[in-house]
């Protein structure tokens, strides 16, 4: 019973003080996974597949399919992989689904916590750097085959443009000039965007092309779930521009998906 902090509110804080994950660490509450040293058998943890983001004139579009697989089975058909992380950015994840969702949750709270404590938002670069730290902390798990690879996109008010960041399993952070993708269908999605992408495209065109790239990825990669109009399963897409982040409505996506599915037949 030395200080008031022992009784009630966390008055003291870890340095630098605005980081939520450091606070959890200091309270002994940060997420922890103990992994045995022996080679891991296939746990059968569901994996999330293709996500991608593309810049356009005035902003950035980020999207992902809805399928999670467990080996060669479909674990979830309506998983959500794209999340607005604050007013000006969104994050999408591929890899071991459970770990990825936890990472997103922590990331979103971290951004909001910083903003509330400091009274100002982190810069876009600052957010990307922090996400890279979260990925790096998962490295021991990645060695066991439980990798998480996020994709980060946001609008940068300083440079007045949308920006896309991709990551690798060791926490490497790469800013993409035009578009980026992660997950099992990433190669196909990138291959599609390589020919379709244009610097001066509008938001509408960018949304159409991202959906088409997901359709292209699903066409070749079995783990990626394309738009399923019969079941009403559509990809998640978010658009971020100077106004902030907003999700693309399902009705509109259904329309776009119908036309791009028609084109791929």
């Amino acid at each position: 019973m030395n200080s008031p902090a022992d009784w009630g509110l966390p008055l003291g804080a870890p340095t630098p003080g605005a980081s939520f994950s450091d606070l959890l660490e200091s309270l002994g509450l940060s997420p922890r996974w103990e992994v045995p040293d022996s080679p891991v058998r296939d746990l059968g943890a569901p994996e999330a597949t293709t996500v991608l983001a593309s810049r356009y004139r005035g902003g950035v579009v980020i999207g992902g399919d809805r399928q999670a697989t467990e080996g060669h089975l479909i674990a979830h058909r309506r998983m959500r992989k794209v999340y607005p992380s604050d007013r000006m950015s969104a994050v999408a994840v591929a890899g071991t689904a459970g770990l990825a969702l936890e990472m997103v949750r922590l990331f979103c709270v971290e951004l909001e916590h910083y903003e509330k404590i400091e009274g100002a938002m982190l810069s876009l670069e600052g957010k990307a750097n922090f996400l890279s730290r979260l990925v790096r902390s998962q490295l021991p798990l990645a060695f066991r085959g439980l990798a998480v690879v996020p994709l980060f996109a946001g609008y940068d008010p300083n440079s007045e443009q949308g920006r896309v960041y991709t990551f690798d399993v060791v926490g490497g952070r790469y800013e993409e000039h035009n578009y980026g993708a992660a997950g099992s269908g990433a190669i196909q999605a990138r291959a599609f965007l390589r020919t379709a992408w244009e610097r001066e495209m509008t938001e509408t065109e960018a949304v159409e092309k991202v959906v088409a790239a997901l359709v292209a990825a699903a066409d070749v990669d079995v783990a990626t779930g394309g738009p399923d109009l019969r079941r009403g399963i559509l990809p998640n897409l978010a658009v971020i521009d100077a106004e902030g982040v907003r999700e693309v409505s399902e009705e509109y996506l259904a329309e776009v998906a119908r036309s791009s599915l028609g084109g791929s037949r």
Partner: protein
Amino acid sequence: MNPSFYVTPEQLVRDRAEFARKGIARGRSIVAMEYREGILMLAENPGAALHKISEVYDRIAFAGVGRYNEFETLRKAGIRQADVMGYLYSRDDVTALGLATAFSQTLGVIFSHETKPFEVELLICELGRNGQPNHMLQVSYDGTLVDERGVLAIGGKADLLGGALRERFTEDLELDAAIRLGMEVFAETENRPLDGWEGAVLEEGSARRCFRRLADAELESLSAQLPS
């Protein structure tokens, strides 16, 4: 060894309370009131950089009067508590009452155990969910917790402000009318030229986070319409 003098608990509490009240009276007061779409918090604040009112959680706001470094410490502690609770359980499990109780406990312990009590008064507001009533809670320097409806004032002139406001307050005011009423009451109570405003609202919108700061220009233009 120093000779230690016996001080009765009554005397100790009286001295400490007087000390805290004096400190609080030096600062400026804050009012909060319910209006049609939510809760308004309004303060006289000459500086634009240091805020007295801030966001704590999705539907919860915090305001503090008194010593800046002390309520700032408490504000940050409140945000930490709220974010940890919301992360460990669910966002719905963070409530104004839970937070206010934590503030009250902490302040109560500081009041009786630390070298000097905190010279602060706090206001915790929560916007009710799905038609549930709003909460407006006041936490005093000694941990006293008060729950109010309609209007609430904290600070040195809290009684005067609160009384004047309660007399003229009506339910379902528009935001502009509520701000104007708050400014008028400040002007009448303070009896001196007021310099600068800080205002924020908790209001229902499409976003999860209901806290919104009022733009200085908006407050200035309303302030200019006041009868001088």
